[in-house]
């Protein structure tokens, strides 16, 4: 997904839409931003991997996710904190949630999910509802996996609450 900003692919006459959403844990993105901040906001990606004794393969998904939500920019092997990323880091816990929520809603696929839920009268859906929506709307082989990321990031962005006992995904 690296470098792909759009979630559309025209393939012959078919338009394939997949979900461009972060697919790593939030805590990985936070860690990446904190390290980047220590390197004064710009550094070679390989140097971060080296510093943390991580394989590049383990680091790149976090880089992709951070780039997708606009907190970093990647340029010829260097990763750079954007203004949005710096502001996010400077915020406290609540401020970070707010900033992240705004960034997530810029992602077309994420916005669609939120709109799908907000169209419901009770502003809530079951897990099954959302799985079906994702399965029909997006070109994804593993809707369960996608749903897991939607819920995790939705919670961190103060957009969604999920109660597995009540089987309810609700807008905040």
């Amino acid at each position, binding site marked *: 997904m690296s470098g792909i900003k759009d979630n559309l692919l025209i393939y012959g006459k078919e338009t394939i839409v997949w979900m461009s959403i972060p697919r790593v844990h*939030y*805590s990985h993105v936070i*860690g*990446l931003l904190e390290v980047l901040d220590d390197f004064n906001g710009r550094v070679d990606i390989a140097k971060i991997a080296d510093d943390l004794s991580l394989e590049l393969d383990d680091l790149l998904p976090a880089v992709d996710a951070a780039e997708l939500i606009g907190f970093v920019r990647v340029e010829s092997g260097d990763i750079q904190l954007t203004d949005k990323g710096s502001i996010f880091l400077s915020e406290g816990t609540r401020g970070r949630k707010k900033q992240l929520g705004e960034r997530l809603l810029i992602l077309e696929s994420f916005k669609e999910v939120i709109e799908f839920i907000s169209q419901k009268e009770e502003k809530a859906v079951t897990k099954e509802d959302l799985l079906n929506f994702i399965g029909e709307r997006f070109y994804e082989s593993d809707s369960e996996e996608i749903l897991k990321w939607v*819920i995790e990031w939705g919670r961190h962005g103060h957009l*969604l609450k999920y109660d*597995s006992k009540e089987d309810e995904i609700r807008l*905040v």
Partner: protein
Amino acid sequence: MSTKDRLTTPVLDVRDVSKEFVHQSKKIPILRDVSFSIHEYEFISIVGPTGCGKSTLLRIIMGLIPPTKGEVIYKGERVQSVNSRMSMVFQSFALFPWLTVLENVELGLEAQGILKEQRNKRALKIMQEVGLEDFENAYPRELSRGMKQRVGFARALVIDPEILLMDEPFSALDPLTAEGLREEVMRLWSDKFTSPEIVIMVTHNVEEAIYLSDRVIVLSQRPGTVILEFNVGMPRPRDRRSPSIYELTDKITSLIA
């Protein structure tokens, strides 16, 4: 507080603590004559090689297990049972999988006999501070390791402890997650609202100890005994990648390697 007062009134005094375990009628010494004092508003780390008894020491300080010899004095009184003014963050999170995040956090308050409504209010407040808002109804299985440890912090902080004990709190986390959570702990520590008066952290990671602490106590190999104690003396916020932290880390690592 004057220097003299600080010297004369430690909050916690570990005096000549030794610990032996008996295994197949053989005595195994774990700790030998460990002594140090801790004052208000100190962040202390205890470092040492694997098996040097540092986790055992933490449990003795909290009153979970008695020392074989010596004593722990907390505010002038000898620790003889579990000290309810202390709470612990564990390496392995130690969450109850059948309880929600909120219920896990409230548990610490239940033991103190605090009413349901109050428990709820305090738990939600501390969860907000550590970034667990919107995760109230989540079960531990829904969480990443990093988030699980945030629950560990919330559960320890919710009782408003005077002393927070942390046993290798970042060791079960991947490097990126650990990086983020260490910063979070620093933020909590500098915020006097959430912060306990004293933090005692046990770690095998020397760099982490230097980065976070005011003072570091270095234990030898088993049986662990204090071989060095030093003030870090670097202003916060610190840069984990600064040359001074590198140098100090090298020096200490060579001592215990």
